Structures are given as C-alpha cells and as structure tokens.
C-alpha cells in the first residue's frame, strides 16, 4: 500500500543473455522511432506521431513480467509497447505508412496498433479510455476461469480523468486482475504534473480504492522489470489490481506538432543523462557482459531490423477504396 519507490539499484543476478535482450529491445524501440520521426519529416508517416524515446525501459521492463496469455491495453504512444510485446516491426511501420500489411490494415495508424494474436488490444487515443476496457478484459478472464492478467498502460495525465477513478474502484471492488501501469513522464502534453495533479504522488492514489501500489524508477529497466514482476505476481496470486507508477521522462516533444515550449533545455538534458539505454549499457559494460564489439553488432542488427521494417512497409499495398466499409461490421450480421 506504500508508494515508496523501489530502489533503483538493479537486482544482482543480471544474466548476460537477458541483459542483452533488454538492451536490444530498447535499442530497437529507439531506432525504430528515430526512423519513424525521419519518415514523418519525409511525409511517409502522417497524422499524430507520439514518440516513446526516453521511456523505453518502461514497456521493455514491464513486458518481461507478462505471459502470452496476458492482455495488454496501451495508449496512442504505444510503438514501444507493441515492439516489446513482440509485434514485428514491419507491420507496425506498415501501419504508420497506412498500408494493408499494417498491423491494423492501415486503418489505425500510429495511435491504433492492434495485434490480437499477441493479445495486444491497442492503441487507445482518448486519454483514459483504455482503463475501463482493461477492467472488462480482466472481468472476462475471471468469469471464464482464465489465469491471465491485464496490463493497462496510461500516462500521468490520464490520472486526472474520471475514467481512472471509476476503473480503479471497479477493478478493486470486483477483485479483478488488472495491473495498472502509470507511465509518469511528468507532463500531460505541456502541462506539468504539479499543474494537473493536486497530489503528485500518483502511487499514493491507490489507497483511495484499497489498491496496493508501488512506484519505480522508470529509467532503470532492471528495476522496472523487478517491480513489474513483483506487482504482476501479486495480481496473479491475489487476483486483485495493483497500481504501479513508473517514473520516466520523454526526451522528445509530445507529438510532431509540439514546439515543446514548456520545458527547459536543462531539464531535458538532465533527464537525458539518465537515458535508460545508457544506464543499461553501463551496467552491461561490466566485464563478461557485453563488449564494444558485441554492442556494435547489436546496433547493426537493430538497424537492419528497422531497415527491413521500412522495406516491408514500403512494399505494402494501399487498401483499395472499395474496401472502405469492410470491417465496419463482421461479415455475417445477425
């Protein structure tokens, strides 16, 4: 019930393989999004594009604690979550290109990634709108006797919405296995946490619903993983919700439209010194972990994956406009 932050010191037994996997995923998200930003500039990607750069440790760490049967509900800033869940980069990029080989057949774009085979339920772009959905997914699991939990990501800004309050209460009241994951990056668009929350300790808000809560340094992927495992285990074991606050920061503007006038260079630079990729690289630089060579190989591998994703996306067809109404309803109506 306490909202004390889990010490950033990462768990001792970091294995080389696991550390490499985490680093690889964070690098993949980073490079993927850098490429997306570039392609946005080139007009290949349109609409809203919200980058996760700086926050990679959150999705990457949390996903370690989930099984393939668990459900994921995310926001419009969800490339990282999709990648970390294992959605291939190609269909994500293709989605942003608006192609039919996109993970939502080009209908959703950056904000609405879906992959039902991985129980990745999207991609919700109305702030707070995903929380009730997550409660419902967990309810279905409970009623169907499935052991899965539902991981629900949302921002600090979403905490102010009524949906947060209603959803935490409902999940707690009905003892539903929802892992509420607040990605506290200190801003809701241009509005700083202290200017949208009267009580800025987000994890402390769980108490109003009897929801056990914790907070963790969201820049330390190992700490995130550990905290997420602890929380997910509790949700599984006790069959009731948990609220985990992940303290992080976005290095880029809110969206490609955002001139980012509300933060100082200083503040951003300070946070960049805690870049989750650098932090893990430092840790991995210990002898016997990941050499310079290996790191460079990893980088190349990731770059190839991103390049392949672009190739995949570029090869995708455009959905013919005759298909505009397809999927409005299921093929067979009642």
């Amino acid at each position, binding site marked *: 019930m306490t909202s004390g932050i889990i010490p950033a010191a990462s768990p001792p037994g970091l294995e080389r393989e696991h550390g490499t996997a985490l680093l690889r995923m964070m690098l993949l998200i980073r490079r993927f999004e850098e490429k997306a930003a570039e392609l946005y500039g080139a007009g290949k990607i349109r609409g809203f594009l919200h980058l996760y750069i700086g926050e990679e440790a959150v999705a990457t760490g949390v996903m370690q604690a989930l099984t393939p049967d668990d*459900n994921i509900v995310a926001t419009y800033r969800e490339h990282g979550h999709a990648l970390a869940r294992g959605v291939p980069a190609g269909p994500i990029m293709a989605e942003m290109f608006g192609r039919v080989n*996109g*993970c*939502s*057949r*080009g*209908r*959703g774009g950056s904000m*609405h990634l*879906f*992959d*039902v085979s991985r129980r990745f*339920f*999207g*991609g*919700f772009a*109305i702030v707070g*709108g995903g*929380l*009730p*959905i*997550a*409660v*419902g*997914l*967990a*309810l*279905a*699991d409970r*009623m*169907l006797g499935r052991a899965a939990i539902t991981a629900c990501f949302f921002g600090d800004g979403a905490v102010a919405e*009524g*949906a947060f309050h*209603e*959803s935490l*209460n*409902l999940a707690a*009241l*009905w003892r539903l296995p929802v892992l509420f994951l607040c990605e506290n990056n200190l801003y809701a668009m241009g509005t700083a946490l202290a200017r949208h929350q009267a009580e800025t300790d987000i994890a402390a808000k769980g108490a109003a619903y009897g929801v056990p809560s914790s907070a963790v340094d969201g820049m330390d992927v190992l700490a995130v993983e550990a905290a997420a495992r602890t929380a997910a285990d509790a949700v599984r074991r006790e069959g009731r919700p948990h609220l985990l606050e992940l303290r992080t920061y976005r290095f880029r503007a809110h969206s490609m439209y955002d001139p980012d006038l509300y933060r100082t260079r200083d503040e951003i630079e300070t946070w960049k010194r805690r870049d989750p990729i650098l932090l893990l690289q430092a840790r991995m630089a210990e002898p016997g972990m990941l050499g310079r060579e290996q790191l460079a190989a990893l980088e190349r591998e990731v770059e190839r994956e991103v390049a392949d994703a672009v190739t995949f996306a570029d090869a995708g067809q455009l959905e013919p406009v005759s298909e505009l109404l*397809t*999927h*409005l*309803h*299921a093929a*067979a*109506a*009642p």
Partner: protein
Amino acid sequence: MRTTYREAARAALREALRTDPRVFLMGEDVGRYGGAYAVSRGLLEEFGPDRVRDTPLSESAFVGAGIGAALGGMRPIVEVMTVNFSLLALDQIVNNAATLRHMSGGQLGVPLVIRMATGAGRQLAAQHSHSLECWYAHVPGIRVVAPATLEDARGMLPTALRSPDPVVIFEHASLYPVEGDLADGAGAVDLERAVVRRPGRDLTLITYGGSLGKALAAAETLAREGVEAEVVDLRVLRPLDLPAIVGSVQRTHRAIIVDEGWRTGGLAGEISACITERAFYELDAPVERVCTAEVPIPYAKQLEDAALPQVDTIVAACRAIMGRP
C-alpha cells in the same frame, strides 16, 4: 399468454442467462434492487451475483468494462439505467465499441448489448426525460433498435446477443407496464425490418418505441373520419429499413414521422430526407414531422404534455397533410 412488456423483457434476459454461459447482466441496481424498472427482478436470486452484477455509479467504467469483456470473449448485457445517464458513457460507445473492429482492421469484435430506458412523459423534468436515440442512430458501427411491442421486447435481445457487433436497445419507460398477449413460443425476431403495424392507403405514419401507441390511436381516430393511415414501426433505428419505409410512402404518397425526440436534428428529419430522396416524385405533399418541442422537458404536466407529441397533435398533422380542416 397474457403478460407485460416488462415481463417479456425479463423473460428474454432469463433465457439468455440460462442458455449462454458467456452472457451476464451488469448495470446500476440490476441486482438487489431488481432494476430501476423492475425488469431484472429475480434474476440475481436465480443466477447469482457473478452473472447479475450491480455496478457502482460509474457509467463510463462499466460500459467500457462491457466492451472489454466482450473483447475478452463474454457476451455482456450492460444496462444503462436510462439514456439520460448514457451521456457519461458515450465516449466509450462512440470511440471504442463502434470503432474497434474497423480500426483494428477486423481483428477485434465487440459483441456487446446495451439496454437503456428512454423517453419522457412521466413528469421527470429536463434531466430525466431525454430521447436521444437519434444520436446513437448516427454512429456507424453499432446497431440501434427500439422494441415497441411485447414480441420485440421478448425477441430482440436474443438476436442482439447473436450479433458479433454492438447493439443498443432502447426501451421506452412508459412501455414497461403495457399488457398484451405473447405467443407461448415467442422468441428471437429479426433486427432488420420495419413493420407495418396497421395498413392504410391514405398516408403513412412512421414511428417507433413509445410513440407507436400514440400513432395507432391517432390512426383509429382518423379511421372514424374516413382517413386510413398506415402505421410503420421502424423497430430498427440503425440501419433504417428504407425499402419498407419508402415502400409504404409509395403506396400512400404522404408521410408523417412521429418522434419523441426534439425536432431539429432528430431522427424524423433524417427519415424525411431519405423519403424525399427516394420518392420525391411520388409524394403528394411534403413529408411532415410531429416531434417534441425544442425545450428542456418541463416538470409540470400541462407543459410536458404540450411539449411531447400527442394523439391529437398527430391527428391534426394528418388532417393537415390530407388537406382537411
């Protein structure tokens, strides 16, 4: 079998809960209280609190949870006590329930049924008397139905539950106590067609839900004056059964829409436009509308009565369109 609309709706719920383990009912006071309109009385006792779930006052969360549960494999029936409170859940319905299949490229489906009471006429004043069916009928991705008869109160739910996509059922609150006969084997009905509830050759009265009775009563009065009004019950508000609507007007050449919604921007205007688009050259007179006055519904009975469509205002509109004094 002699029964009521309320009991017919309850029978449909009971059958659904009995026959499909994925079905459950949730909403405010559907359990211990027995439903604000006593529709679900007894169901908690019969099916237990897992399948008949009282929710907190959290329309957004429990409608959203219904969507999520549908995604997760259940067949939820969510009762929003009345359309008035459904505004608090509209975002979930419009932005999630209605979009998820299309937006996910066909990967997801939301087989959700939402029931709500609607309408005015019981002196409940401005915040409790809305008729906002037209708003729901505007939204692609959902099907909207309005049972006006016992058969439909009994039969629309099972069909809705077979739908792979969201269905919203509007029950006019004044209908619950209505008595009538229901065939013993009454069961599922289509969610496709408008139906002629009374044939007539002189003009078509198009209506649905709580206004059907008023339209039929007006037709009786008119019959005594030698005017034979055909009464069409829309039944399905989205998608509209335009062939049936237009077909009737092509026979009668005159149409009046009776709708308890506010006039401007309501369903009546839509139907009027559709008829004109399809049967312009067969109309003997412009399509008319009898709707609710454009005002928050007042409490005082004489004011509320004056605001809503009534049998005599329908009759007067019919006389006018027939060119009678």
